[in-house]
């Protein structure tokens, strides 16, 4: 893998780490598998691209955050006020947002930002793009760590840990889910918005499989760095996303077809989640083999 490819992987990893942080908020903190992500990612990218083509690339990123936030609110509304199961609520918003995304993009399947000013075209120097991405990630990471120390942040964490107890403490868990899912998808929207400006291209189908990509990054980070507390966890997630991108870049540098990207991501997630079970099964099998040997002896 060339140095150039490696640098690109790190830059992409940093941008995708915002997506992974979004999943960290919904999947880990709130304990909700949120499938809105696939569409809120595209929504962020679409909004960011539309604003960038109009000459407002920075405003585009802010709007990507706002759009993601609203997408999260929609899912939270379906889950709490209409009592739809979390997975189905996510699927409903994801599907509904597909049409919304198409509208945002004025019916086009893709928008090219070639020749348009973006956050990254403004960044100069060899590492300009990397520093730009790093700055955003750093700001988001610090914000998250501080946020989860506030009263609301604590309540959101507790809602994912023991919802019953939070309600008996006179806290409205519905409100916490609104804020939590809004925040999660705002991060995802920002990630999409940045990717769009980074690769100067937004495609209607670019969000497909983003839940899995985010989860893979999240889990890789946790396996390597552990998750003793929020700030260590946030760092782990960011590193996880970068490592994930590096693995992908490495695999493709060896000549694997890019078409298998999603397959590989899913396998990583499936293995990482079932890893403890696989180890247990393996130990049990060894134990059984030994026991049967002792019977014959």
């Amino acid at each position: 893998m060339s140095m150039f490819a490696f640098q690109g992987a790190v830059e992409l990893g940093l941008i995708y780490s915002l997506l992974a942080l979004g999943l960290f908020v919904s999947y880990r903190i709130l304990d909700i598998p949120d499938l809105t992500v696939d569409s809120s990612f595209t929504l962020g990218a679409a909004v960011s691209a539309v604003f960038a083509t109009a000459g407002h690339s920075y405003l585009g990123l802010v709007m990507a955050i706002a759009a993601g936030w609203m997408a999260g609110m929609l899912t939270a509304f379906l889950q709490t006020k209409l009592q739809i199961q979390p997975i189905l609520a996510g699927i409903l918003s994801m599907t509904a947002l597909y049409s919304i995304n198409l509208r945002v993009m004025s019916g086009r399947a893709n928008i090219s930002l070639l020749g348009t000013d973006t956050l990254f075209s403004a960044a100069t120097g060899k590492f300009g793009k990397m520093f730009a991405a790093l700055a955003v990630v750093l700001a988001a990471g610090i914000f998250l760590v501080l946020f989860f120390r506030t009263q609301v942040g604590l309540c959101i964490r507790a809602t994912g840990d023991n919802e019953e107890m939070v309600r008996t403490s006179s806290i409205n868990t519905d409100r916490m889910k609104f804020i939590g899912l809004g925040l999660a998808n705002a991060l995802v929207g920002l990630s999409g918005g940045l990717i769009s400006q980074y690769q100067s291209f937004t495609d209607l189908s670019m969000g497909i499989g983003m839940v899995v990509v985010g989860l893979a990054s999240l889990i890789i980070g946790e396996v390597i760095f552990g998750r003793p507390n929020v700030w260590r966890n946030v760092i782990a997630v960011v590193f996880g996303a970068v490592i994930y991108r590096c693995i992908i870049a490495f695999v493709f540098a060896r000549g694997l077809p890019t078409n298998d990207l999603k397959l590989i991501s899913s396998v990583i997630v499936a293995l990482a989640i079932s890893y403890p079970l696989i180890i247990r099964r393996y130990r049990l099998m060894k134990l059984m083999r030994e026991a049967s040997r002792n019977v014959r002896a």
Partner: protein
Amino acid sequence: MLELKHVSKTFFPNTINERKALIDLSLTLENGDFVTIIGGNGAGKSTLFNAVAGSFLIDSGNILLDGQDITFLRDYKRARNIGRLLQDPLKGTAPNMTIEENLTMAYQRGVKSSFRLGVGKKEQQAFRDHLAELGLGLEDRMKTKMGLLSGGQRQAVTLMMATIVTPKLLLLDEHTAALDPATAEKVALLTQKIVAKEKITTMMITHNMQQSLDCGNRTIMMDGGRMILDIKGAERSKLTVSDLLAMFKDKSKKELDNDRMLLS
């Protein structure tokens, strides 16, 4: 303080599983009352608590707390004034959060949580003082995750969380039943101490007949969704467990069927 007027609740109405859990139940608690509640399996004791705490809405009747009609108030809004402990020590706390973080949540009871820092210096000192009162040495382990504590320690902390902001009403649903005898005794004493100190109006479900007479100033016996006995004052002070059993048999025309009650 607490007033229940003709409260009824039927589960699974018009089905083969229909169960009348509360039948036209009326009950008034005075300020500072400590009521113990006993009764057989399925007598409606926990249903009564769930109705008061708002886990479900009742079919008919009214519930008033301190003069305010709370019949249709959402559960988390009622929780501003009602502290509650369940039998299962796992249910009262968030296991993956530290002791001080758990306490912070309880400390916000009644105020809308804001974006202020959760655990400040001032709170930390307050929590330390409260924890020291428990006498379990937890004041030096405030950064320990709740899930690492024993059942008794968790239940003691849960008790503190339920009372750290003094509630108008405290509901104790067999909160010592899942603990080993020594710990149960400790938590029970702690409960009495806190309730007496803050003069909290309290209802306690217990399966221990002796405890139902030793604690509090009033004893209620339930059966089949109704209140069949309500004893207080002089009559109660000279009552023994065997009297209570005889009264139950007489009132309900059957033997007491709560197996745990008979064993204890």
